[in-house]
């Protein structure tokens, strides 16, 4: 892979890695009395490791010009592997933290294993580690195929992918040590946030530069969604993380916002992270891999347009529905609620557009677990967006707020929609990337499908039950006019559902392990078939060459 970089790119990689290592060294020295220093050491080792990696093939011959006639897929391949690695780690911690709620002794009296620390390892691990890497990997693939242009250089995609994973490593290792700014889904501290800004702006520029080079007159829908994902996440990340560090040698910082403004900013961020990270980005994924795999045209271009603008416009207002019946002024709650209700229409239009695209391919859905993953994902997307709009209504929220119903809702989206569309897309993408005819074992895809589906259903039903029971217990009055149940009564009532949830999560984790094994074996299979030579038809349009190259994937 390093041999595919030009010598100039190798030099640039070494220079940037050295700068990173120096930065880590400075952090380690400045933060020697603080946990900040530990992160300095991690950054230093990360930089040195990268230098070593590049040096290992530094003297390989310059790659031939012929590379420019092909798409650049090495970062996508590495991104897929990283994504699956994070999936297993993140879901493992998810199962652990679920078990912790049923059996509190599973912290083993260790601070790093307490609920408040491993819970963000789970959420960041699956959202940013698994989801983020899958988005980056597929976006590079989709972007090149739908623009018929090669990525403009070979260095920046690596900077984005590896830089992003450094952020994930800093996030997760920080949580274990207790470093957090205690903003949900935005826990990493100021220095990790700053680093992510650099990485994310590079990602944005890389995307724009490639789009500028496109050989297609129109920009495909998938790219609208990927662009919305990249652009809005940048805005959200920068605004919500505005903070002043205690010093340049300490991890701790203080947010620019306080009180109800802080809460509103956080949930404007939090809900739009759901919208633009977990929805928009994965809709981009769906818009490419689902029609490809089904071999069908998108049901309606016009529907795509109103869905896209409806989703991007309306989501921006919806964050305040996380703060119903709080100190937040009621008018802000009203706006959040009403826009959430209208949002259901473009959301269902997107899900409907995906499902109607399958018209004429339902036989494939039945036979092909990969396509079935994507179909079920679209169904869960529809279910969870309906549920979301429903829960945003103040009267419903008064029952559901602070209960496990919220957790069930999130997982209907995260397991049923985000993870399913990702696994479906990866199963489609992996054989193309490693130039083999199909995945190592279609049977294991089938096994994974049923593990994932049953795990999701068990999880979601358990949390619906426990959430609604909780909500009802907290609002039931006895005939004395006082609360009928104490809080601990509701905790006791949750116990069986917490066990069921752990089982559901465990099934889903097993599915992810099966997927990782299947991908690993596919990669091994590709090595033994190496010289088979394939995929010459999967090429970008060359400067001045004929315009009608058809890709075969």
């Amino acid at each position, binding site marked *: 892979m390093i041999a595919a970089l030009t010598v100039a790119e190798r030099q640039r990689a070494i220079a940037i890695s050295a700068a990173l290592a120096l930065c880590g060294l400075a952090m380690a020295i400045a933060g020697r009395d603080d946990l900040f220093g530990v992160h300095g050491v991690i950054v230093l080792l990360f930089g040195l490791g990268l230098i070593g990696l590049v040096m290992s093939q530094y003297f390989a011959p310059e790659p031939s010009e012929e590379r420019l006639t092909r798409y650049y897929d090495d970062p996508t391949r590495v991104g897929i592997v990283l994504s699956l690695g994070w999936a297993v780690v993140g879901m493992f911690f998810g199962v652990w933290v679920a078990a912790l709620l049923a059996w509190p002794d599973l912290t083993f009296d260790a601070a790093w294993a307490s609920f408040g620390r491993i819970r963000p390892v789970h959420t960041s691990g699956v959202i940013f580690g698994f989801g983020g890497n899958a988005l980056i990997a597929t976006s590079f693939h989709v972007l090149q195929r739908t623009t018929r242009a090669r990525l403009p250089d070979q260095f920046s995609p690596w900077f984005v992918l590896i830089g992003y994973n450094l952020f994930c490593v800093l996030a997760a290792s920080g949580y274990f040590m207790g470093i957090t700014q205690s903003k949900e889904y935005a826990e990493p501290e100021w220095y990790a946030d700053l680093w992510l800004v650099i990485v994310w702006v590079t990602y944005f520029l890389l995307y724009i530069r490639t789009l500028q080079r496109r050989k297609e007159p129109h920009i495909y829908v998938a790219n609208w969604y990927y662009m919305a994902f990249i652009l809005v996440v940048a805005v959200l990340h920068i605004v919500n993380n505005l903070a002043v560090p205690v010093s340049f040698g300490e991890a701790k910082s203080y947010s620019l916002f306080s009180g109800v403004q802080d809460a509103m900013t956080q949930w404007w961020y939090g809900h739009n992270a759901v919208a633009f990270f977990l929805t928009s980005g994965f809709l981009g994924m769906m818009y490419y891999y689902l029609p490809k795999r089904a071999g069908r045209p998108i049901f309606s271009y016009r529907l795509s347009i109103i869905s896209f603008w409806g989703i991007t416009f309306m989501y921006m207002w919806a964050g305040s529905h996380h703060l119903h019946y709080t100190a937040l002024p009621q008018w802000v709650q009203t*706006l959040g609620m009403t826009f959430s*209700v*209208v949002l259901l229409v473009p959301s269902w239009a997107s899900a409907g557009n995906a499902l109607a695209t399958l018209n004429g391919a339902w036989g494939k859905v039945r036979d092909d677990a990969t396509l079935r993953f994507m179909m079920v994902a679209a169904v869960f997307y529809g279910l969870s967006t309906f549920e979301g709009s429903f829960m945003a209504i103040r009267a419903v929220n008064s029952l559901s707020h602070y209960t496990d119903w919220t957790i069930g809702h999130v997982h209907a989206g995260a397991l049923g929609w985000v993870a399913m569309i990702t696994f479906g897309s990866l199963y489609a993408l992996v054989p193309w990337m490693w130039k083999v005819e199909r995945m190592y074992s279609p049977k294991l895809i089938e096994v994974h499908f049923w593990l994932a589906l049953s795990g999701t259903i068990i999880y979601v039903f358990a949390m619906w039950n426990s959430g609604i029971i909780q909500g009802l217990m907290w609002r039931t009055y006895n005939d004395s006019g006082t609360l009928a149940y104490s809080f601990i009564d509701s905790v006791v009532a949750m116990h069986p559902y917490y066990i069921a949830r752990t089982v559901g999560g465990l099934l889903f984790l097993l599915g992810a392990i099966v997927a990782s094994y299947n991908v690993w074996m596919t990669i091994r299979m590709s090595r033994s078939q190496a010289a088979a030579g394939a995929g010459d038809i999967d090429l970008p349009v060359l400067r001045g060459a004929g315009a009608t190259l058809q890709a075969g994937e």
Partner: protein
Amino acid sequence: MADATRDPVTGTMTTGHEWNGIEELDTPIPRVVLFFLGAATLFAIGYWLLMPAWPLGVTYTKGLLGIDQRKVVAEQVRDAAAERASWTAKLDKASFAEIAADPAVMRHVRDTGRTLFEDNCAVCHGVQGKGGPGFPNLAAGSWLWGGSPEAIAQTIRVGINGTAKDTRTAQMMAFGRDGILQREQVLAVAAYVRSLSGQKLGEAEQARVPAGKEVYAANCVACHGENAKGQQDLGAPDLTDANWIYGGDLQSVVNSIHGGRQGHMPSWEGRLSPTDIKLLALYVGTLGEAKR
């Protein structure tokens, strides 16, 4: 870019766009989508007209219904209090003896006391009030500061070694650590104390009892009393019964004498209303009922 063609499955024309094999149909937006978009938008506009909705500089549109969430919750709290007044009125005014004699009010006390106790007290004293290491058993009838409802209410109100000005204060001195007693004396008095509650002592321990009795008379009587029954106005526990806050085995008793004890109960005044405190005092009094 391909030209628009007719899709054989649906009979619809494509848009003529094509990306790496992906095409799009030119299907019109289904009417049902437009209908629901219109309906949802109308709902939103209607809701904005009725409820507080849009910011106007320093104020906001109040809505035709004039509903305000703060007013609503204040009304609901007031209404609920008025509903409970049927029995809380007597709770507020009557003496503990009068309330205890009124089964109708006591039924409410048991209902409401349980949730109040479990939400506020159970974290230390346990759901059934049986306590645990470091926290007294409230169901045993063995009281540090008195078991009358008046005494219990006072303990809840001011706490023990708490933050209230008139908090109950009590301290068992660290006889061993502070050098008041020698190691042998600590062991001896521990043996004597354990013998008071009729525990089975080892042979060596038994031999220390007479010496321990002397140590006890010289050092412990002031608080725990000559008969070792404790003194409720000082918060000194009874040493002759089977109830031990910090454990009655030899090691625990030695630890208590060596290092002293200073238990803590928060002052609940300000956190719980006077009515709730009165109600809890009555409820705590009922915890031992099942046993007796």
